C-alpha cells in the first residue's frame, strides 16, 4: 500500500494518478485527443473545400457564357441590294460584311478586309435570313440589326482573351511623320525606352530596341488614330525615335502636345493570343462608338450543337436528355416497382428469390460502362436497334437505374407497418387487393423519392451512352425517340475536348445547366420526403 501512496513534505498524499508524470501523461493524452478531433474536422473541411473549389471553378468559368456580345450594324436591305424575289440562296452574310466595311472605310487591303470580316460570326447570315423570313417587313429599309460576333471577338470584349490594358497619357510631346502606313514617331523624352525594355523588347545595337510579336504590344493613340510601335532608338537631344505601323489613320501629322497622346500596353504578346492588335483596335473603336451590345446569350440556350463556339447551343442536348429520361422512366419505374412489390410482398423464401436479391445488389455495383457494353452487344448488335437513339440510351439507363429503384422501393414498402396489411386481410381483401389498395399508396412517396434520385443519377451518367454512339456530332434538335441525339453530359464531354477557348466557357455553362436540373430533381425528392413521409 505504501508504494501507491507516499507522503512528501507537507504530508499530503500523492498518488501515481496525480504526480507530475501522470500530469504529463494526461497532457499528452489530451493533446492527442485535440489532434484527433482537429484531424476529423479537417477532413470534413477538406471535403467542403473541394466542393467549393469545384463549384466556384465551374461557376466563374460559366458566368461569361451566359451573355454574348452583338454588333449593332445598320443593314441596307433596300430592294437595290436584296431582291425580295430571290431570297433563296441569297448571300446575307455579304450584306452584313458590307455594312461592317462601311464602318471602316480605311480598311482596304484584301487581307485586312478578311480579318475584319472575321470579327463577325460565320452564322450571322443564317440568323438574318431566319429573321427576314419571320418578318418580311424588314426588307426594303435600313434596319439596325444585332449581328453575333465571332467567339474570339466576343471573348476579347469580355476581357478573357488578353490583358486589355488601359490608356495612359504620355507625359511628353509626340510628333508623327505621316498619317498612314509605316511612320516614325518622335518622343520628347526617353522614358519610352525603359518602358519598352520592361515589356520584353529585344535589344539591338546602339541602344535600339525591337518589339517583336513575342513582346507586349505598345499602341500609341494620337490625333484620332492608332499607331503600333515596332522599333525604338535613341534620337538627338534625349529624344526617342520610334518606328510604327499605323493601324488607324491619323487625322494629321501635327505634333501632339504633352498629355495629348495616350499609350496603351497589352501585356499578352501578340503571338500568344488569338486576336491581333488590329482586331483589338477595331473592336475598341466599335465599342467606344457604342455599337457593341452585351445581351443574354439566347443562342446558347435555344440552338443545337455547332463547331463554331459562338453558335453552339445546348438545346439539342437538353431535348435528347429529356427524351432519354422519358424512356428510362417508362421502363424502369413500372418494372422496378413491380419487382420490389413481388420481392417484398409475395415472394416465398426460396432459392430463386435469394438469387434475385443477391443479383440486384450485385447489379447496383456493376460499373456503368459495363451496361454500355451490354447495350452495344445486345440492343445494337443483336436486336439491330438504331445507334445514337434516345430509345436505346433510355433502355440502357433503365437497366442501370433498375436496381436503385428496386432497393429504394423495397425499403419504402418495408416501412409500411404490418398492421395495415393485417387489417386489410382481416376485412376480407385478397393479398393483391391488400397490396395495391393499401400498402402501395402508403409506400408511394418513398418510392417516388427513390425513383427521382435514381433518375437524377441516370441524368448525370455518361459512360454507357458513349458506348451506344450517343457521342455523335448532331446539329439537329432530335424530334423523336429514334432520331440520333446526344445528351447533356455527353455534350459536356465533347465540348471539354474542343480546343477553342470559347468552348471552355460553354462547357462550364452546360455543366451549370446540368447541375441546375439535378438540384431541381433533388429538391423535389426532398420536398416529397418532407411532405409525405410518415413515421409509424
Amino acid at each position, binding site marked *: 500500500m505504501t508504494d501507491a501512496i507516499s507522503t512528501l513534505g507537507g504530508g499530503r498524499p500523492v498518488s501515481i494518478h496525480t504526480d507530475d508524470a501522470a500530469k504529463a501523461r494526461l497532457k499528452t493524452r489530451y493533446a492527442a485527443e485535440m489532434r484527433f478531433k482537429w484531424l476529423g474536422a479537417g477532413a470534413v473541411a477538406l471535403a467542403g473545400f473541394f466542393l467549393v473549389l469545384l463549384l466556384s471553378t465551374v461557376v466563374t468559368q460559366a458566368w461569361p457564357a451566359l451573355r454574348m456580345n452583338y454588333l449593332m450594324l445598320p443593314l441596307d436591305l433596300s430592294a437595290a441590294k436584296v431582291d425580295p424575289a430571290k431570297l433563296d440562296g441569297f448571300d446575307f452574310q455579304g450584306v452584313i460584311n458590307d455594312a461592317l466595311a462601311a464602318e471602316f472605310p480605311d480598311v482596304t487591303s484584301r487581307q485586312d478586309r478578311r480579318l475584319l470580316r472575321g470579327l463577325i460570326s460565320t452564322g450571322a447570315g443564317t440568323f438574318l435570313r431566319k429573321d427576314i423570313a419571320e418578318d418580311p417587313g424588314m426588307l426594303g429599309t435600313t434596319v439596325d440589326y444585332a449581328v453575333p460576333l465571332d467567339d474570339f471577338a466576343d471573348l476579347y470584349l469580355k476581357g478573357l482573351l488578353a490583358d486589355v490594358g488601359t490608356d495612359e497619357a504620355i507625359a511628353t510631346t509626340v510628333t508623327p511623320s505621316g498619317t498612314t502606313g509605316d511612320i516614325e514617331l518622335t518622343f520628347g523624352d526617353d522614358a519610352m525606352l525603359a518602358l519598352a525594355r520592361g515589356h520584353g523588347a529585344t535589344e539591338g545595337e546602339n541602344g535600339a530596341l525591337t518589339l517583336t510579336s513575342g513582346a507586349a504590344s505598345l499602341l500609341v493613340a494620337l490625333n484620332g488614330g492608332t499607331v503600333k510601335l515596332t522599333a525604338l532608338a535613341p534620337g538627338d537631344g534625349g529624344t526617342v525615335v520610334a518606328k510604327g505601323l499605323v493601324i488607324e489613320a491619323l487625322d494629321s501629322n501635327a505634333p501632339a502636345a504633352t498629355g495629348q497622346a495616350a499609350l496603351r500596353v497589352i501585356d499578352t504578346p501578340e503571338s500568344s493570343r488569338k486576336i491581333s492588335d488590329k482586331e483589338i483596335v477595331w473592336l475598341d473603336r466599335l465599342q467606344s462608338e457604342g455599337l457593341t451590345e452585351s445581351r443574354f446569350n439566347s443562342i446558347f440556350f435555344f440552338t443545337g450543337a455547332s463547331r463554331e463556339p459562338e453558335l453552339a447551343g445546348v438545346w439539342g442536348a437538353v431535348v435528347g436528355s429529356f427524351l432519354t429520361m422519358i424512356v428510362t422512366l417508362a421502363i424502369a419505374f413500372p418494372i422496378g416497382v413491380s419487382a420490389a412489390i*413481388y420481392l417484398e410482398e409475395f415472394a416465398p423464401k426460396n432459392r430463386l428469390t435469394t438469387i434475385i436479391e443477391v443479383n440486384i445488389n450485385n447489379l447496383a455495383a456493376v460499373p456503368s460502362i459495363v451496361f454500355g457494353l451490354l447495350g452495344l452487344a445486345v440492343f445494337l448488335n443483336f436486336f439491330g436497334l438504331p445507334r445514337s437513339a434516345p430509345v436505346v440510351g433510355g433502355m440502357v439507363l433503365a437497366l442501370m437505374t433498375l436496381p436503385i429503384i428496386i432497393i429504394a422501393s423495397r425499403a419504402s414498402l418495408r416501412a409500411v407497418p404490418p398492421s395495415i396489411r393485417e387489417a386489410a386481410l382481416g376485412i376480407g381483401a385478397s393479398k393483391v387487393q391488400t397490396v395495391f389498395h393499401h400498402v402501395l399508396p402508403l409506400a408511394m412517396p418513398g418510392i417516388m423519392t427513390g425513383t427521382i434520385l435514381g433518375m437524377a443519377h441516370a441524368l448525370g451518367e455518361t459512360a454507357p451512352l458513349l458506348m451506344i454512339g450517343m457521342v455523335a456530332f448532331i446539329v439537329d434538335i432530335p424530334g423523336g425517340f429514334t432520331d440520333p441525339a446526344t445528351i447533356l453530359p455527353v455534350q459536356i464531354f465533347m465540348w471539354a475536348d474542343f480546343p477553342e477557348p470559347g468552348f471552355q466557357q460553354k462547357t462550364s455553362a452546360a455543366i451549370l445547366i446540368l447541375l441546375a436540373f439535378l438540384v431541381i430533381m433533388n429538391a423535389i425528392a426532398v420536398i416529397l420526403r418532407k411532405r409525405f413521409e410518415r413515421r409509424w
Partner: protein
Amino acid sequence: MVGYLVLLLLALAAAAWWLGRSRAVASVNGEVARLHSLPGQHGMFLALFTAGPALLAVIIWAMATPGIESSIIANRFAAELSGMGVPQVEAFIRDARAIAFGGVVGFTDATKEAAAAAYRSIHATSLWIIWIVALALAAAGFFWAYGRIAPAYRARHVVERILRAFLILCSVVAILTTIGIVLSLIFESLRFFQQVPFYKFLFGTHWSPQSAFTGAGTEAGAVNEDIFGAVPLFAGTLLITFIAMLVAAPIGLMAAIYLSDYASKSVRAVAKPVLEILAGIPTVVYGFFAALTVAPFFRGMGESLGLDVASESALAAGVVMGIMIIPFVSSLSDDVINAVPQSLRDGSAGLGATKSETIRKVVLPAALPGIVSAMLLAVSRAIGETMIVVMAAGLAANLTANPLEAVTTVTVQIVTLLVGDQEFDSAKTLAAFALGLVLFCITLALNIVALRVVQKYREQYD
C-alpha cells in the same frame, strides 16, 4: 404504324373492361353480391384476354422483325454481297435500312437503292401480317373470355394469377440483365480469344491495339497477337485507384468519425448535405474539373519544383477520383461506426479513456470488418469509374509506377476502342469486351469479398 396498332389495342382493352363489367353485372341482374368476383375484376379479366396476347405478339414482332428482314435482304442480294466480309454486309444492310426508313446514310448506289426498295416492301408486308395477327388474337381472346363471364366464374383468381406472373417477370428482369451482361461479355471475349490467346492478353506487357492493322510487318488482316498485352492497363488502373484511395480513405474515414462522434448537430446539418452534393455531382463534371483545373495545377507545381509532370498525369486523375469517392467511403463508414453499440463507448469512457482513445481502441476495432468492406467497395467503384480517367488520364499504355507520368486504365481503353467505331468484328473492338469482362469479374469479386468480410468477421453484440 405499330404505334397506332398499340393505341388501338389499348382502346380495345378499355372497351373490353367496360363490356366485361357490364356483362358481369347484367348476368346477376344487378345483384352484385351474387358474383364470385367483383364486376371490375371481370372487366379486367376480359381486358387482359383481349389485349394481352395481341400486345405480346406485337412485342415479339418488334424484337424479331429487324433480324428477319435483314436476313431476307441478305439472302435476296446474296449475289451482290458474296464478295464482301461480314462488316461490309452489315454496313450495306444498315445503309439500305437508313435509305428506306430515314437515317444517316454512308453513301448510296443502285444496289443499295434496290435493297432499300425491297426493304420497304418487306416491311409493309410484315406490318400487314402483324396487324392481322394482332387483331385476330384480340378477337379470339375477347370471344373466349366473354363466353366465360358468369356469376360463379372466378375471374379474380385468374386476374391475380396473371398479375403475380407479371410481377415475377419484372423481378426476373434483374436476372436477365445479369445473364445478358455475362453472356454478351463472354461471347465477344471468346471471339477475341480465338484471335489472341488469353495468356498473351492477360500477361503481355505491350498494348497498342490502335496499330493493330497498320503493319508491324504483318500481312493485311492478320492480327498481331503481341500488341494486346493488358498488363500496362491493369497497372495503370491500380496506380490511379491507389492514389484515389490514398485521398479518399483517410479523409472519408476521418470525416465519418468526426460526424458520428464529435460533430455538433449544427455542424452535421451542414456537413452531411455537403457530402451528399459531392456524391451527386456527375462524374463528367469531375472529369472536366480534373482536366482543366487540377492537372494544370499539378503540372505548374511540378514545374516550380523542377519535376517533369505529364499534363495527363496519373496524380491528377487519381486525386480527383479520390475526391469523388470521399462521400462514398464516409457514408459507408458512417453506417458501420454508428452500428457499434453505445454500450461499448460508455464502457470505455467509464474506464477513463478519452474520446479519441475510445474510437481508436474500441470503436474502430469493432467496426473493422465493416470498414474493410467499405474500402473494398470504394476500390471497386474506383476501378470501374470511367469519365474522370477518360478526360484526365492518358491514352498511351505506359508500364510505370510513377504517379507523375501519364498512364491509361481499363475503362479508358474500352471507351477509346469503341467510340466512333462502327464495325464490331475486328480484334481491336472485341478487345474492349475482353477488358469489360475483366472489369466485371474484378468488381464482382471485390463486392463478394466485401460481403464475405462483413458476414464472416462481424461481431454480434446483441
